[in-house]
């Protein structure tokens, strides 16, 4: 075996070192394109065989989906701009929460309301005799009596009427946070519901629809329609279509609300 001279050995070592260094540097640049990075793109199927397959739920009420966090596994910590840009700091959006107890006054220069230091001139408790009580004169026809049922329903039903029949089910999220809106919606539909006394007892009629931010109703449909829509089914659909729904709560940020609503004629 020919012995190499020390100069040749050193040169050989030098060359080998440079080549290896070059290969290493090359690998640094080329490797990200050679090997697919496991990006955690929200909801995509490209995460590899052990990636998570998630379907975006479009009507999850009240929960704002966080903005996707974009990261790159092979980001190099280097400020050398000629080589590549450093990754920007990923920002996670925190969903806004509005404090329901906050008092929003539209006037920007709202004057301070003077705090009362003296007792008001009027007594705070007023006897009922002082107030104009509603009069029911003898000539008024009492609701539901007289020559015929005028078939107009008001909020003035007799005390003791059954308050139930308004079940609440479903996923519960919307009703728990906005119970007041659900009650207003029920009132609006009941108010528009024409009962002319000719309805018969019938299984519950279910109507589905959606409510947008302005309180507009769309996609009105019977859940289990009969072949020829009965008068009760038509009345139920009409009640939903003509109900004066208020706008959705101002702090609700979700998509239009899906509703299933039943009409119970049993009495």
């Amino acid at each position: 075996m020919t012995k190499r001279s020390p100069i040749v050995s050193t040169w050989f070592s030098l060359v080998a070192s440079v080549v290896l260094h070059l290969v290493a540097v090359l690998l640094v640049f080329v490797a990200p394109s050679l090997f697919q990075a496991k990006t955690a793109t929200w909801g995509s199927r490209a995460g590899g065989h052990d990636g998570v397959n998630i379907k975006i739920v479009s009507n999850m009420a009240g929960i704002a989906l966080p903005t996707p966090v974009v990261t790159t596994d092979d980001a190099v910590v280097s400020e050398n701009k000629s080589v590549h840009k450093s990754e920007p700091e990923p920002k996670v959006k925190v969903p806004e929460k509005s404090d329901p107890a906050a008092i929003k006054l539209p006037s920007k220069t709202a004057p301070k309301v003077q705090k009362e230091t003296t007792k008001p001139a009027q007594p705070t408790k007023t006897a009922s005799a002082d107030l104009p009580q509603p009069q029911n004169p003898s000539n008024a026809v009492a609701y539901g009596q007289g020559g015929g049922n005028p078939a107009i329903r008001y909020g003035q039903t007799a005390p003791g009427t059954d308050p139930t029949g308004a079940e609440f089910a479903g996923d519960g999220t919307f009703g728990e946070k906005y119970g007041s809106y659900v009650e207003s919606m029920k009132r609006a539909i009941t108010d528009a519901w024409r009962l002319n006394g000719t309805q018969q007892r019938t299984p519950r009629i279910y109507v589905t629809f959606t409510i947008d931010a302005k309180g507009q109703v769309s996609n009105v449909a019977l859940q289990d329609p009969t072949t020829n829509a009965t008068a009760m089914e038509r009345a139920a659909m009409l009640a939903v279509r003509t109900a004066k729904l208020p706008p959705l709560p101002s702090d609700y940020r979700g998509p239009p609300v899906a509703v299933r609503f039943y009409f119970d004629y049993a009495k």
Partner: protein
Amino acid sequence: MLLAPMGAAVLRGQQIDTGTTVGMKAVKIAVPEFRPSAADAKINHLAEVFNQTLWNDLDFSGNVVLASRSYYPLGNFVNPADIRPEDWTRTGVEAAYITYGSVAIPTSGQMRGAFTADLHFTELKSNRPALQPVRWGGGLDTDDAARFVAHNWASAILENLGFGKGVATTKIAYVSDRAGAKEVYIMDYDGYGPFPLTSLRDLSLTPAWSPDSEHIAYMGYRGSVTNIEIIPRRGGPSVPFPSPVGLNTTPAWSPDGKRIAFASNRDRHSSGDGPEIYVANSNGTNMIRLLPRPTSRGIDTSPVWNPATGRELAFVSDRSGTQQIYRINDDGTNLRRIIDDGGDAENPSWSPDGNFLAFAWKRSGNSRFDIYLHDLVTGRNSQLTRDTSDNEKPTWSPDGKHIAFESNRTGALQIFSMLADGNKPQQLTRSGINKAPAWSGYIK
């Protein structure tokens, strides 16, 4: 976490699943008096006006029940911290909602010198605001300003509860001779703030609102000419129909505002011929008689449009010998009688949803007129007024829950309003003779 595909029969993750049943309980509201922010005579007075107006607006709405103040806890209820829900939900009060706050006349800032109110509306079970608290100003420091804020707050509450705007911000046009000649006046739905709109100084009768509530059509006498005229509700020149002939009266706007039906005897052949029903463009051009000449006789008058369809009218005719109410398509076809029970029926007024006719009826054997409702779906009639006076000329409110009418129950003819089931009659006018009310729509 794979979500299963949704079939049509599966409850598709609805966010609300609820319903209603016959006989839902009325919603009860507590309305303690809004507090004046200072011990000042003017603010105290305006607080009283505001509180009275708000109470009456909610009480007369026909939608809610007001908890009696006899059971309210003692105290001032100005801020959310002043409200303990258990005090308002317990037996005796049993309110589901409460509205409260304070009133002031600021001495500085944007609302300086104007009546302002800090307004709260809270759902008691959750103790959360049903409406975001607001401060509203009425522009001036007058009774009108206090009423204006109260009317709008009542309207906001009713709308939030699901009842639509109610009637608190609506108006009533009518005929009054309180200043001498009969002119068309306008007042708030509760009788406040009346002012004359017309000034013909002759006779102005039978007012009717345009569907957008911006104009009033009426019958105006100018000397020997009687014509349909149109005047803006805010005041301004009164514009008559072109080329008037004969007697022209009882105008009524179509629901789309493009046409006006009215009664006219312009085509009469003899002095025995009465008026007939005509339809014209809203500027009086392109007049068409609804029924062909040979088959009509006697008096046809008081046309009203079906507000739900805009394609048919009801009117009064004595073609059968007595005054009765008929309906007809707007092309003159399909004439048929509606009220079929004898007596004299007149003054039809169609409910906003198209399902009812209110009218005045003097039944056989009676000497007086009363207000009745005719259900166009079932054919049934029901009586709304019942006393020894004449009650006539009913007009529906835009929410379909109230009716105004004229009555001589207090002596001279006056305007009254009531719920559409006959309850809670309210006297709206007091001076002079007042009649022929017409309830506005929603004024923008």
